[in-house]
C-alpha cells in the first residue's frame, strides 16, 4: 500500500513508532531519529518498508528537509543483501518516483536474508543501521475481503442477539500453499462511539460476536497479521450491523390472553352443564339402592317408628290385610326383596310342595328348609329370594324355643288347639307376638301343613335323657339312634294298627322313647288311640310321656287326662286333644311332668280372622287340687 503524501508519511512514521518502539529488527527506521533530534535538519531517510505477501516488498523514502533533493532522481536507493560474503550494494530494481517508492519484485526478494537500505545522493550517502531488516519481519498482510454478517439468534428476552461474521483471507496472501499463516482480529464498536472492542485473534475465517443489543447500530472491521509476528495489516472497510426490535412480542401477548379467556369460558360451560343436569348425573353416578320391601306391605310401614302399624297390618288389623293382596303386590318387581309371609289364600302356588314332611326335611339336615321356615327363607318358593338376609333358613333369631313351639303348633295348621297357644304367647313381648303372628299368617294351607311335624313341643325331658314330645305330631329325633329305629317300628306299628286312620297318618304323634334300654316304649298312637288301654306303661296319653317301663301310670291320672284327648275329633286334624303347650303343673317324684289338660277353646280372641289357623291349644285350666290329690302317687 503506497503512501501518497509527506503528511501521510509522517503519520505513518508516528504510527509505526508508536507500534514498534521495541525496534524489532528491520523496522526501526526513523523513530529514534525523530525523537532525538527534532530541531536538526532531517536528512533523507526511508519512511517505511512493507511486504504484503512475503514475496515482494516496497520501501518509501523521504528527502527530509533537504528539499533540493526532492526532485526525482536526486536520491538513489541502494540495497545490500547479505547473501554471500561477496555481496555488494545494488541499486533499487524498480523505482516509482511518484511515490518515492522502491519496489522489489519476487526475483529480488529473499526471505530470511537481511537487507540493508541506503539513500545516495550525488555525493553523499545517507545510511542508517536501523534500516536493515529481513523480509519476514516487515510483512503486513492485506486486510481480509468480503466481510459480511448473519444473525445467529436472539435472546429470549428479545434484548440482545448474536451475529456471525465471516470473510475471506486477503487474496494477495498465499494461504492455500501454506506460505503464510494469518491470524485475524475483529473489532467492533457502537455507532458514534470511539472505543473499539477487540475480539481474540484466531486463524479461522469466521467469528461470532455475542451480546449485541437490539436497536443499536454497530460498526465492524477486521485486520490480520502473520502468526508469531507482530505487525498488523491495515483495517478493512467497516460493515454496519443493525437489528431492529422484533414485533413478535406483541403478537404473543394477545395470544396468551385469548388462551386464558378460552380456558375460563370452557370451565364455566362445564360447570353450567353439571349444575343443570345435576339430577341426571346423580342418577348415573349414584344409582338408587333398592329398598327392601315386604310383599304386600307398604314400604312406608317399614320405616322407623311405625312398628305398631306394621304389626297391625300384618296381623290383619289393617285394611284388607296382607293375605289378600300379598301375592300379587310386587309380582313384577323381581328386585324387590320380599319377606315371605304365607297367607291362607296362597293359591299362587308359592307354597312349597308336600314332599315328605318338613320335619324330615328339617332333621335331615341335607335338605333345604321349606318355606315354613321363617321370615325371609324362601328358597324353595317361587320367589327365589337370594338376598333374604338370612344365612340360612335356620335363623337362630327365631328358632328359639318359642318359635319351635309355635311352629310345632302351626304345623298341623289347624285352628283347634293351636290357637290356644297364642294365649300363652300373649304374655310374651310384642315383638315375639308379631313374629308369631307372622308365622301364623304364613301357615296357611292346612293340607300342606298336615304333614309337617318337624317341630314338636317338648313336653318332658326324662331323666334318662328321653324327650317327651307333645302328641299330635310326628317328630323324629335323631339324638338317639335307637329312637330312630323305634320310630320306624312305631311307624310300622301305627300303620298296622290304624289302618283306618290313614287320614290321620300325618297327624300321628309319635312319642319318642328315648329310653336307652329300649325296653318299654309307648307310642303316641297307642296313647292316643281312644280306648286303647295303655298297655305300655305310659301315663299320659297325649302327652308326652315317655316314661320308663317301670313307670306305672296313675290310672286316675290317665282317666283324668283321657277326656282331654280327643284324637278323633274331626275338626281337629291334630287328632289330639293334647295340646302342644301345656302348663307344667308338677313334677312328681318319678320325674314325670304333670301337665295341665289342654283347653277346649282354641282360638284366642286376638286372632279372630284366622279360624283355621293352626294354633296350638293352650291349656286354660289347671289341675284342680282334688285332681291333684288323685294324681299324687
Amino acid at each position, binding site marked *: 500500500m503506497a503512501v501518497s503524501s509527506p503528511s501521510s508519511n509522517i503519520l505513518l512514521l508516528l504510527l509505526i513508532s508508536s507500534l514498534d518502539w*521495541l*525496534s*524489532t*529488527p*528491520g523496522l*526501526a527506521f526513523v523513530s529514534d531519529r525523530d525523537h532525538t533530534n527534532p530541531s536538526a535538519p532531517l536528512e533523507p531517510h526511508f519512511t517505511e518498508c512493507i511486504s504484503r505477501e*512475503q*514475496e515482494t516488498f516496497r520501501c518509501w523514502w523521504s528527502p527530509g528537509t533537504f528539499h533540493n533533493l526532492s526532485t526525482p532522481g536526486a536520491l538513489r536507493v541502494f540495497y545490500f543483501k*547479505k547473501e554471500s560474503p561477496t555481496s555488494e550494494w545494488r541499486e533499487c530494481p524498480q523505482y516509482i518516483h511518484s511515490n518515492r517508492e522502491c519496489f522489489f519484485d*519476487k526475483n529480488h*526478494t*529473499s*526471505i*530470511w*536474508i*537481511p537487507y*540493508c537500505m541506503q539513500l545516495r545522493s550525488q555525493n553523499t550517502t545517507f545510511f542508517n*543501521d*536501523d*534500516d*536493515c*531488516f*529481513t523480509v*519476514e519481519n516487515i510483512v503486513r498482510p492485506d486486510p481480509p475481503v468480503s466481510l459480511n454478517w448473519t444473525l445467529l439468534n436472539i435472546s429470549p428476552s428479545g434484548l440482545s442477539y448474536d451475529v456471525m461474521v465471516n470473510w475471506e483471507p486477503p487474496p494477495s496472501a*498465499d*494461504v*492455500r*500453499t*501454506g*506460505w503464510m*499463516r494469518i491470524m485475524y482480529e475483529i473489532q467492533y464498536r457502537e455507532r458514534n462511539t470511539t472505543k473499539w472492542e477487540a475480539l481474540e485473534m484466531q486463524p479461522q475465517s469466521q467469528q461470532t460476536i455475542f451480546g449485541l443489543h437490539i436497536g443499536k447500530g454497530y460498526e465492524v472491521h477486521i485486520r490480520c497479521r502473520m*502468526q*508469531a*509476528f507482530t505487525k498488523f495489516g491495515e483495517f478493512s472497510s467497516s460493515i454496519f450491523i443493525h437489528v431492529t426490535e422484533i414485533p413478535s412480542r406483541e403478537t404473543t401477548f394477545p395470544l396468551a390472553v385469548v388462551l386464558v379467556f378460552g380456558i375460563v369460558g370452557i370451565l364455566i360451560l362445564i360447570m353450567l352443564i353439571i349444575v343443570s343436569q345435576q339430577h341426571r348425573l346423580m342418577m348415573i353416578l349414584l344409582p338408587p339402592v333398592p329398598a327392601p320391601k315386604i310383599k304386600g306391605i307398604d314400604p312406608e310401614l317399614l320405616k322407623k317408628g311405625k312398628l305398631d302399624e306394621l304389626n297391625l297390618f300384618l296381623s290383619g288389623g289393617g285394611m284388607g290385610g296382607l293375605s289378600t293382596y300379598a301375592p300379587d303386590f310386587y309380582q313384577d318387581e323381581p328386585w324387590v326383596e320380599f319377606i315371605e309371609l304365607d297367607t291362607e289364600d296362597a293359591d299362587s302356588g308359592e307354597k312349597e310342595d308336600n314332599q315328605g314332611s318338613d320335619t324330615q326335611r328339617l332333621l335331615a339336615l341335607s335338605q333345604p328348609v321349606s318355606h315354613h321356615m321363617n321370615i325371609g327363607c324362601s328358597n324353595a318358593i317361587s320367589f327365589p329370594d337370594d338376598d333374604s338376609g338370612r344365612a340360612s333358613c335356620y335363623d337362630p333369631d327365631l328358632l328359639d324355643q318359642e318359635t319351635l313351639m309355635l311352629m310345632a303348633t302351626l304345623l298341623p295348621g289347624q285352628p283347634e288347639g293351636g290357637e290356644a297357644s297364642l294365649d300363652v304367647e300373649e304374655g310374651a313381648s310384642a315383638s315375639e307376638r308379631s313374629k308369631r303372628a307372622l308365622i301364623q299368617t304364613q301357615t296357611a294351607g292346612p293340607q300342606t301343613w298336615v304333614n309337617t311335624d318337624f317341630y314338636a313341643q317338648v313336653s318332658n325331658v326324662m331323666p334318662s335323657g328321653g324327650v317327651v314330645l307333645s302328641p299330635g305330631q310326628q317328630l323324629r329325633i335323631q339324638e338317639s339312634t335307637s329312637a330312630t329305629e323305634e320310630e320306624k317300628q312305631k311307624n310300622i306299628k301305627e300303620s298296622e294298627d290304624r289302618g283306618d286312620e290313614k287320614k290321620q297318618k300325618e297327624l300321628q304323634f309319635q312319642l319318642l322313647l328315648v329310653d336307652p334300654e329300649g325296653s318299654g316304649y309307648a307310642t303316641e298312637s297307642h296313647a292316643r288311640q281312644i280306648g286303647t288301654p295303655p298297655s305300655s306303661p305310659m301315663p299320659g296319653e297325649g302327652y308326652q310321656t315317655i316314661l320308663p317301663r317301670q313307670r306305672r301310670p296313675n290310672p286316675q291320672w290317665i282317666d283324668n287326662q283321657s277326656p282331654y284327648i280327643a284324637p278323633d275329633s274331626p275338626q281337629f286334624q291334630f287328632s289330639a286333644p293334647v295340646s302342644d303347650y301345656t302348663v307344667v303343673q308338677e313334677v312328681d317324684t318319678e320325674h314325670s311332668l304333670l301337665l295341665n289338660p289342654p283347653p277346649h277353646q282354641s282360638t284366642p280372641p286376638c286372632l279372630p280372622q284366622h279360624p283355621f289357623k293352626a294354633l296350638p291349644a293352650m291349656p286354660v285350666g289347671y289341675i284342680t287340687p282334688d285332681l291333684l290329690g288323685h294324681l299324687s302317687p
Partner: protein
Amino acid sequence: MSGTIRSVSVVWLLLLCLVLCRTLTGTGAAPICANAQAGCYAVSLANLFDRVVQHSARMHGISNDLHSEFEQYFLPSKNQVGRVGRNCHTSTILTPNGKENAQRMAREELTEVILKLLVAWRDPLWHFHRSMAHHHDFTNFSSDKALEMSDMVHELRKGVERVAEKMQTLGLMSDPVNSQVSPEALPPPDSGEWRRMKDYDLLYCFRRDSNKVKNYLKILKCRIVPEHGC
C-alpha cells in the same frame, strides 16, 4: 474460594489426564511408526503432517517469545540486523529463500534441508539452556522456554524423519534422506556479556531458522496432502 475452585479444577484435570493418558498409552503402547509394523501404531500421512506442522509452528512461536524477551531486557540500542559480523552457524546450509524457490525444490531436497536445520540446532540449544540455567539473570519463564525449545527441536526432527519414511513407503519420495549431518562446532564462550550477545544472536538465528522450518513444512504438506487445511 478461588483457591478451592482452582484446586478442584486441578484435581479434575489430573483425573482427566490420567484417563486420557491411560487411553492414549493403552492405544499408544505401541510407538507411532510410519508403517504398520508389528508393535507399531500407524498414522496417516496427513495426520503426521498436521502434527509436524503444528509442532514447528509452536517451536517458532516459542523462539519468537524468547527473542522478544531478550530484546526487552538485554537490548542493544541499535538494530542488530545490520551487523555484518553476525553470522549464524547455519548459514552454510543452502536453504530456499523464497516461495518459488521452495516450491520449485524437490521434496527430497526440501526434506533434507529441514532435517539439516533441525540437526544443526540440537546442540546449540542444549548449551543455551544450560547457560541460561547457570546464570540466574533470566526468569524461570525464559529458562523453561529454552528447555522446551531444545526438546521440541529434538521431537520435530524425529517427526520429520517419520514423515520422510512414510513418504518413502508411499512412493512419494525416492531418495533416502540423509540425516547424518554433523552439527557445526560452536564458538567457545568468552565472557558473560559476549555470551549474552551470543545468546541473543543464537536466539535470533534460531528464530529465523524455526521460521524457515515451519514454512518449508507447510509448503511440503500443502504440496503432498493439499486437502487438509491448506
